[in-house]
């Protein structure tokens, strides 16, 4: 039976190819000079360089966290390339001028950028190693006053907005990896939705790591002004290399009064091979600030890739009646390790949060949910509902749940539910006895398990995520 399942679900990582392209690369290593060089290459204003240097000096004083439930050899931060960009980095006005090799790469990844082929209802910012290579539908969005561009461009074109919000949600010294990112980030996306505007299409950024020795340090900032609404998607892939690569991103979201941001991620970085060799270290800080009253931030993530995942998309609920949501599916197989969850920090009155976390562990992987629910002294009438479900496939995988609850006033209500289930031989036999193939059996059970989360994803992503999970369970059942 094991062999049969292996054949059925054995799908190699299909995004593992490398694009042969000439790059402008800074030599390995990290120092103030390297940071000055990155800043200079990006033609940044003085305040931006200072922001970076402040972060770097803080980072030097910090130590790498070790509390997460994951083990890996020490990272040599001097052995990483901090900037690598395809040559001719200036952004083209027309996509027809973008290097055909790059267009081809994104097309292979299922993200066609050219005018004829691109998705009609999704605007895409395509990031290749350290820089944004193309952003679609910019003009159309601009008609509504929506700004959607690379963060580098935003720093030049909209310095006041960027300066006001960058680092306001995740301070430069928030944590070790956030400090590193703040010092060396090379590109990412910037979104601003003006007052009272409902963004007319889905916005999305697609991250691609290509160079084998490059770390990717992207920075995303989304600001939703009063009464506005935006849905944003993020996708990620990388080639297969034997060495581990570092990806340390920071994402900051801000919602003002009555605004809403919905942020969805389908993360499929290279996870390493069956023996656990290679793969991306995905050490990411994502945090949203519900600054205004009645505002809402909703995170949905489907985490299937990376050798190690360390991320806790969080909501700080400052505005009264604001709402935070976190819907997560994390799947680990082989030797993957995931320590992921959320923080819901309730500060304003009548703030509400919902956490739905689904962990699926197969192979010899480790999958941990770690979450904090905190009600501050002024968060009167705050409410939280958490549900953490784990599914084990086979006998050698690990699932852990670490919920932390801190309540500083007695008017709130916290609910926590958890369950553990297992896809076992007998369940699979039941399907097969009804004539249903193993492949369909596993995929039906997984989609059923993840339904509450997939329902939150935009349609195109939901289908993709469903398919992705089935493919990922390569030889893990039986």
């Amino acid at each position, binding site marked *: 039976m094991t062999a049969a399942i292996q054949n059925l679900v054995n799908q190699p990582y299909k995004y593992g190819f490398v694009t042969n392209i000439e790059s402008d690369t800074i030599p390995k290593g990290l120092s103030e000079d390297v940071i000055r060089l990155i800043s200079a290459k990006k033609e940044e204003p003085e305040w931006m360089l200072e922001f970076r240097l402040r972060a770097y000096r803080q980072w030097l004083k910090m130590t790498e966290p070790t509390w997460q439930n994951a083990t890996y050899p020490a990272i040599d931060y001097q052995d990483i390339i901090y900037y690598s960009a395809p040559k001719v980095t200036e952004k083209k006005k027309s996509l027809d001028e973008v290097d055909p090799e790059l267009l081809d790469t994104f097309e292979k990844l299922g993200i066609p950028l050219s005018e004829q082929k691109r998705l009609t209802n999704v605007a895409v910012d395509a990031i290749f190693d350290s820089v944004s290579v193309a952003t679609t539908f910019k003009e159309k969005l601009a008609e509504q006053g929506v700004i959607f561009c690379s963060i580098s461009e935003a720093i030049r074109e909209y310095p006041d907005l960027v300066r006001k919000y960058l680092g306001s949600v995740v301070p430069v010294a928030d944590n070790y990896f956030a400090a590193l990112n703040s010092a060396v980030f090379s590109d990412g996306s910037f979104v601003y939705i003006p007052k009272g505007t409902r963004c007319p299409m889905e916005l999305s950024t697609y991250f691609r790591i290509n160079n084998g020795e490059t770390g990717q340090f992207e920075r995303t900032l989304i600001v939703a002004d009063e009464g506005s609404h935006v849905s944003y998607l993020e996708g990620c892939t990388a080639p297969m290399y034997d060495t581990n690569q570092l990806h340390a991103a920071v994402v900051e979201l801000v919602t003002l009064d009555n605004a809403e941001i919905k942020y969805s991620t389908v993360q499929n970085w290279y996870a390493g091979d069956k023996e656990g060799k290679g793969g991306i270290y995905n050490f990411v800080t994502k945090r949203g600030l519900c600054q205004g009253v009645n505002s809402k931030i909703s995170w949905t993530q489907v985490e299937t890739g990376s050798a190690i995942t360390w991320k806790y998309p969080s909501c700080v609920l400052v505005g009264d009646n604001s709402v935070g949501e976190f819907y997560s599916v994390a799947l680990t197989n082989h030797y993957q390790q995931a320590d992921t969850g959320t923080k819901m920090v309730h500060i304003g009155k009548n703030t509400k949060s919902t956490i739905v976390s689904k962990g699926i562990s197969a192979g010899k992987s480790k999958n941990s949910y770690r979450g904090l629910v905190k009600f501050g002294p002024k968060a009167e009438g705050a409410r939280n509902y958490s549900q953490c479900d784990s599914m084990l496939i086979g006998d050698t995988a690990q699932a852990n749940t670490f919920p932390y609850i801190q309540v500083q006033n007695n008017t709130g209500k916290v609910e926590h539910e958890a369950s553990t289930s297992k896809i076992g031989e007998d369940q699979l036999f039941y399907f097969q*006895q009804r004539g249903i193939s193993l492949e369909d059996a596993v995929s039906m059970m997984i989609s059923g398990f993840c339904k509450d989360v997939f329902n939150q994803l935009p349609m195109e992503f939901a289908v993709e995520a469903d398919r992705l999970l089935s493919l990922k369970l390569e030889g893990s059942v039986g």
Partner: protein
Amino acid sequence: MIRENSEVILSIQDLSAEVDGNPILKGLTLEIKAGEVHAIMGPNGSGKSTLSKILAGHPAYTVTSGSVTFHGKNLLEMEAEERAKSGIFLAFQYPLEIPGVSNLDFLRVAYNAKRKHEGLEELDAFDFDELVQAKLELLKMNPSFLSRSVNEGFSGGEKKRNEILQMALLEPKLAILDEIDSGLDIDALKVVSSGVNALTTPDNAVLLITHYQRLLNYIEPDYVHVMEAGRILTTGSKELAHELEARGYDWVRDEEVEAIAR
């Protein structure tokens, strides 16, 4: 119904099997023809349920010798999924709960897998819904069953009815009902039995596995086999079941010992 010239559906010859190195079946022989209802009775641990799982192709059991032919084909070479699609149906003693998968989806995927196997077009959701509603009536099941997860939170009786609902949809050639009566009150037993009776035709066969004679009042067997220690000790008509009920399994065992001594 016993008819002389019926087709042989299942032929088991001298079958031995083990699980984790422990022999469970020790030379079992049984033949089932179209239109027949067979009942296998026997004490706990005699190998009744093991036989049903081996016939359905459960991977935990290893056949060590003997043969099983189903419609002239070597059953032991077929995967569980193939056996199911070829017409072997096992109503589980303990039907599995599948959280998150709706009963309706499960039934439709199973039904369409069989249609596909037979070279027929798959039914779409609307046509399938019509079909399944009709089958629900047969088993006096509430349509709300369909939207619930497969067997999750079902009572014992509901689970058994759900098994027969699947049988009604899949129309198997050979239905193996493993203790379909366990955990049923008398009303549920009547519903389940009349469902099974309505599904028996001259072209298919039923193998009942049970501890108790009670079930056989509702589903009348053509043959009753008494199983012990991995083989069939004796075979008789339905009267044998009454005798077992009255005198217990020891009586058969003693008879057998005497027979061997003679």
